[in-house]
């Protein structure tokens, strides 16, 4: 049971952050299909920092620098989307997909080069080990082992909710995703706001990436990317109807099922049911499809998402 909670928290933290990232981007009017790629870049940068930090670095240093690196890398990689989709009005679907492909290929090449350089040519795997870094994030509350990552994700969730509903900035951001011409007509710089939305998604996506690979693992093979976690987050975002608090709940729902598929044998009554593991894997998707069917009648994406903003057009 403890394990169930533990893994639910981890998966939920990842999904919440990345989905919130997607939400900010879409609320500003840019569909971010590249979350997967952003996660990979964030994960890679964070992992590299953990690898590079000296063994005697303090926990706080490790935590802060790792998160910082992941966030910065996420933001930088989201620039690929921002520049193409905002300045050059490129198709958002295409750019997102391209970024995903680019990220896995680039991360593999970069990590290989990084390892080769560091090992003086003996190790050129696309894998990073960061056992010390991983440990630095661990935190025990009674029997429950949680990670600083989760605490940070929780804080960011609260911040996001407050930010989303209470600030001038978010009001403007949301206007840009609904009716950019209206925003423009009251003097809001739509391009800037969309940049903000995309970069925010980079920030959160990058953090999500490092949590994905480091909260439960201390090794990652970058040639595998993040195995669809970004797309899952996208689903969570739509499921959460582009609202932060709903996203949190949807993420938890997904996470519960996802962790059940791995830890079910540790829960007696489930173990007795002998449900095949693959069925557990399918569960979150089936359940959410059904829930979506029941709740989607009135769900609506930001109206202007996916459409490049053009001052001249109406």
């Amino acid at each position, binding site marked *: 049971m403890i394990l169930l909670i533990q893994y639910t928290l981890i998966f939920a933290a990842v999904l919440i952050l990345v989905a919130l990232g997607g939400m900010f981007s879409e609320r500003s009017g840019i569909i971010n299909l590249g979350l997967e790629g952003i996660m990979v870049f964030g994960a890679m940068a964070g992992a590299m920092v953990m690898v590079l930090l000296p063994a005697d670095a303090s926990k706080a240093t490790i935590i802060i620098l790792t998160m910082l690196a992941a966030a910065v890398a996420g933001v930088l990689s989201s620039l690929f989307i921002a520049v193409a989709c905002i300045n050059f009005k490129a198709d958002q679907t295409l750019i997102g997909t391209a970024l995903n492909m680019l990220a896995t290929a680039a991360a593999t090449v970069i990590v290989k080069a990084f390892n080769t350089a560091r090992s003086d040519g003996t190790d050129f795997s696309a894998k990073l080990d960061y056992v010390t870094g991983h440990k630095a994030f661990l935190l025990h509350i009674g029997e429950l082992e949680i990670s600083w990552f989760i605490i940070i994700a929780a804080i960011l969730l609260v911040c996001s909710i407050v930010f989303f509903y209470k600030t001038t900035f978010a009001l403007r951001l949301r*206007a840009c995703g609904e009716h950019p011409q*209206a925003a423009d007509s009251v003097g*809001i710089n739509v391009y800037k706001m969309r940049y903000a939305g995309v970069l925010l998604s980079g920030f959160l996506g990058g953090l999500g990436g490092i949590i994905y690979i480091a909260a439960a693992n201390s090794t990652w093979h970058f040639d595998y990317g993040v195995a669809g976690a970004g797309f899952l987050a996208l689903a969570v975002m739509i499921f959460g109807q582009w609202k932060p608090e709903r996203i949190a709940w949807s993420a938890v729902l997904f996470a519960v099922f996802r962790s059940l598929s791995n830890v079910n044998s540790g829960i007696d009554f489930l173990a007795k049911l002998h449900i095949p593991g693959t069925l557990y894997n399918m569960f979150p998707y089936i359940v959410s499809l059904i829930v979506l069917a029941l709740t989607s009648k009135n769900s609506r994406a930001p109206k202007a998402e996916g459409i490049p903003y053009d001052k001249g057009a109406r």
Partner: protein
Amino acid sequence: MGNEDYVIEMLHIRKEFPGIVANDDITLQLKRGEIHALLGENGAGKSTLMSVLFGLYTPEKGTIKKDGQEVHIKNPNDATDLGIGMVHQHFMLVDIFTVLDNIILGAEPSKFGFLTKADARKRVMELSKKYNLKVDPDAKIQDITVGMQQRVEILKMLYRDNEVLIFDEPTAVLTPQEIDELMKIMKELAAEGKSILFITHKLNEIKEVADRCSILRKGKYIGTVNVADTTKEELSSLMVGHNVSLKVAKEDAKPTDEVLTVKNLCVKSKNHNKDAVHNVSFRVKAGEIVCIAGIDGNGQTELVGGITGLENVTNGQIILDGEDITKKSIRYRNTHGISHVPEDRHKHGLVLDYSLEDNMVLQRYFEKDFNKAGLMKRDDIRRYSDVLAERFDVRSGEGAKTIVRSMSGGNQQKAIVAREMDRDHKLLIAVQPTRGLDVGAIEYIHKAIVNERDNGSAILLVSLELDEVMNLSDRILVMYEGEIVGEVDPKTTTLQELGLYMSGAKRDHRKEA
């Protein structure tokens, strides 16, 4: 040095769009405290000129002066800083935001970046009271009437303390009562010293409120006149370059067979639990124009939806030419005698990203004139579209292959009217067929509708514009809160009487089956 009397001077403005000069050397001078009307056909360049003033477009040539000083307005922010505000032709409101959020957007009161809406709310309520602009600050835009949205747009300008106010066709979507209110408000504002630029196609309104009027034609400046010294006829001929008749000439109706019979029709409302259309019964005969009058939101949309099949009917019967079509598909109704000029041309009437020719055959593409073994007969479609465009004077940049989105609203409307009139029909349902059109176009469409009637069609007209209602119809049914509350004869009734029915103050206890 510019004349100090002018708040705004736009001198020799030129604005080009690919393939067209929208504004060609246009000069416009706005006096302090005046209401200055801007008149011109669809596509004459009015909206473009105003967008230049508001910083949405950068002109290729020309200068703008504010209080005699040359200014550079590069974006709406600059315009706002100069005290210029604009109510756009197509409202610039965010649907899912509340009224209050829309008003403050871009000029939000805040502390450390956090919204402090309380002050804003107070201010908005004060303004709303002072100018008698009733709004519910917490309602969402998507839930309120167009009239209220208009008020929100005005409050937006007032909230920003603008001294120059631009109204781009504010009345096209308002009910007569709302128009009256708006006219009052505009006068009040002008009296307070604010200067107003007012675009409209309705000459009555110009006569009622404007001090001066500038006229544009095909992107060129024609001249400025003092409204008091001119007649409506003069204005309209200045605008289109020839004389237009403002009154519809038509003979008395000679109704024959019954074409449409509606019995006890009920349609559920999407907004509340009650019926949007409740127990409505009426008939329309061939050779007559029956008009449904009423204030927007009293069930007209749903009634038409029920008859055309766009909405589900919960009770009652619709009989077309003796056949019960209550349960028939839209396609069936389309092909069995109903033509429909829809209320919202962008939502229903057109596929904006299709070409003009493809829109012209929107309900007919599968007929054997245009379709052979599943293949579209492109040449025939092109020819058909060209003929229709020619006949109904639909103007577009690249002819039949113009993407409809790029056509002006007026021409889009004409295209729909052309399509619907030309289709085989026994019944023509026209909902606000002239919304937003210039007088020339209105005249044309009105004539066409009367012509249809004389050729034996039954016409069901739904309009919010009383002028149109009175001019065009042979019988008027007034709808109020989903029911038909009265039937009047346009020849004998008065505007006052109509108003009483429309506001629910008077109702007949009719019996019709």
